């Protein structure tokens, strides 16, 4: 008998750890509303009987009404259960979520729509977000969960949606408006018609006592997009130094090297970007462009940010023609007029000086007077 067998025989039987079932992405067929399952891939057209409601007609003649409501995205189980109760009682037990964290309830009869809407609104879930509305703001984790947030996202979004709820409930914009919020320049919130992004405005503050122990210095050096970071000996210990004139304050060095603190209660500011669109409809997809910088990081309601966003939105609402997204509208009226109409200030900091920036310069005499 060898030693291993002896040990196994004498030791108390050990519960073997549960191995994960690597099942991957579940099949969604089991969760589909029966009419969605029945008419899978065989839809004919849709319309919107009222804001917040989509009406889809299948080739078979079947009809489905979807009611869309806003949520707070980070939901407690009480809220999720409440939404389930509503789905069971007023809809047909099936829901789905949109990419902007709205919830949709599917029903098979037109007369189920009104009571469902009434119940959702009564329970505090605004109905809207369809068509030419301002939909719920896509956002990131912020102070609640992120390890490098310059601000909060859930709070800024809640504050802003409180002010934009009427535009969520109505479809009065020229075209759909997608907003996003990101709590640092890595911009996990993504491209949007209007985006709110925290911007660091000062180089990182380095705690030289910690760098050698915490950071893999070459990978931090490699991470810097403008080669502003180099290894250095500080007080006789290996550390890093930043050429502050070169530094663009992007914050890329902070995740692999937390002693290079980039967030700053005073100097983390918010910037506003406009004109991003991922859809290929009409023009090709576009990136968003920075139009305002230096707004204060002012919790809990960030009023300065709301004011600028509302100003841009309302100017767009009044001035754009139907079907023009914000990017389409600006393409028609031109950037000088965009700044004029919104009252925002065009400064030298808005002229791109990044690699490939010439494509953003005006190489023509196309000028509006």
């Amino acid at each position: 008998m060898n030693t291993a067998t002896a040990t196994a025989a004498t030791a108390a039987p050990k519960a073997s750890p549960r191995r994960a079932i690597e099942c991957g992405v579940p099949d969604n067929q089991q969760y589909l509303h029966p009419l969605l399952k029945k008419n899978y891939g065989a839809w004919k057209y849709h319309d919107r009987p009222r804001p917040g409601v989509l009406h889809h007609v299948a080739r078979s003649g079947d009809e489905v009404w979807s009611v869309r409501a806003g949520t707070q995205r980070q939901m407690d189980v009480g809220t999720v259960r409440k939404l389930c109760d509503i789905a069971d009682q007023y809809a047909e037990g099936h829901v789905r979520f949109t990419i902007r964290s709205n919830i949709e309830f599917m029903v098979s009869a037109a007369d189920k729509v009104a009571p469902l809407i009434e119940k959702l609104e009564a329970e505090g879930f605004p109905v809207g977000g369809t068509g030419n509305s301002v939909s719920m703001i896509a956002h990131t984790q912020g102070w609640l969960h992120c390890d490098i947030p310059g601000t909060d996202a859930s709070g800024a979004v809640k504050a802003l949606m409180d002010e934009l709820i009427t535009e969520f409930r109505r479809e009065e914009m020229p075209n759909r408006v997608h907003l996003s919020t990101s709590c640092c320049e890595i911009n996990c919130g993504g491209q949007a018609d209007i985006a709110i992004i925290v911007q660091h405005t000062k180089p990182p503050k380095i705690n030289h006592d910690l760098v050698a122990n915490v950071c893999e210095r070459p990978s931090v050096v490699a991470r810097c997009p403008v080669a502003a970071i180099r290894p250095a000996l500080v007080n006789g210990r290996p550390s890093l130094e930043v050429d502050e004139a070169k530094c663009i304050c992007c914050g890329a060095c902070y995740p692999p090297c937390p002693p290079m603190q980039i967030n700053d209660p005073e100097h983390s500011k918010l910037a506003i970007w406009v004109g991003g669109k991922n859809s290929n409809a009409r023009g090709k997809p576009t990136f968003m462009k920075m139009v305002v910088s230096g707004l204060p990081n002012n919790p809990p309601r960030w009023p300065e940010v709301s004011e600028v966003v509302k100003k841009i939105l309302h100017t767009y609402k009044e001035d754009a023609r139907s079907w023009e997204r914000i990017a389409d509208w600006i393409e028609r009226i031109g950037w000088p007029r965009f700044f004029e109409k919104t009252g925002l200030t065009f400064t030298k900091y808005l002229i791109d000086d990044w690699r490939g920036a010439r494509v953003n310069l005006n190489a023509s005499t196309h000028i509006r007077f």
Partner: protein
Amino acid sequence: MAKPMHPTPMLDELESGPWPSFVTGLKRLAEDKDYVVDVLGQLETSYKTRKGYWKGGTVGVIGYGGGVIPRFTELKDAEGKPVFKDAAEFHTLRVMPPPGMHYTTDILRKFCDVWEEHGSGLIAFHGQSGDIMFQGAKTDNVQGAFDAINELGFDLGGAGPAVRTSMSCVGAARCEQSCYDEARAHRAVINNFLDDIHRPSLPYKFKFKFSGCPNDCMNSIQRADMAIIGTWRDNMRSDEALARRWFAAHGVDELVNNVVARCPTKAIQLKDASKVATGATITSVKVSDTQALEIDNRDCVRCMHCINVITGGLAPGEDTGATILVGGKRTLKIGDLMGTVVVPFMKLATDEDREALVELAQKIIDFFAENALEHERTGEMIERIGLVNFLEALEIEVDPNMVACPRTNPYVRTDGWDDEVARIKALKQQQQAA
């Protein structure tokens, strides 16, 4: 029984106003959970000091290297003890959603039960990569929570340098614009890469996203390393009854200014109904007894605009599939990149078609794994090595649909020009003969 709440004057302000409040939800959880009482305490501190206090670490489940986002508090007192000790750990489980994010109330209630037992009770539907975010668990509870979620038929998503959780639009389940079975393609691709999701070992993250048509509701073109966007290559379909109904409701001004004039390539014209052209590439539809739309499909770029406006009256064709774009990403390190077309059209109708998609994805991931620098996204790698090198490695023939225009700078070695012309001509002849 939970301990008394910390004062949260700033967060309290986020309970006013008409939009649903996450603070109210957290306070409801705090009634029973000391854990959430302290989460609120730390969050209020962030609001006061305008600083974040979470740092990463290493927490996982048995057998996997990723999928849990560890968070430990950095808010410590003078002795180095957590100020809010019950929330010293606040880990998130990323869980992959079903394609199209469809649920029954039954499965949502089961999620709630699991997360109430093992976690904070806070769930985000969904994170920006598509995951269901089960937010807030202590290290000791992570395995139990995962086991219970896994028993429900759900699996962890990606984190770190790995294939990430994917998203697909509502698609064929409820959209008439759907050009392929997004859910099946989504599952075929992602479930092929489970090892690369669960055991992060790539140079950096790699994201797939699936959109059923060029409206790209999943924002795949800007956010996915590999975007699969539905399209069609035959003629647009039309339905006279629906087109007439739309015209009767909207009139000629709207048709001219918002349909005809907004066509990006001027492929669509308003014509006298008796003078509409016919031909193999023409789609036409009467909107009234005297007026009709005429579309030359050879000029159409499948942008979706006219179809979006006259839903059902105009519709994608029947020979549907997808365009594949590679290299989209946001910001770090060389700025935003859109995906670049690498396959203008791919049929995705059968299991064999989907296998071909999986094979292409596998080749791209393999090339990325071997050739990208550390912390370099696919788009950045392609920018560094050039699209041609990437295509040659994947054995994909060049196609003018891959560029906005041919090169504008003259600095290029063209030694192999004649050979390439001969090779491509021979290839085309061969394809025509086949």
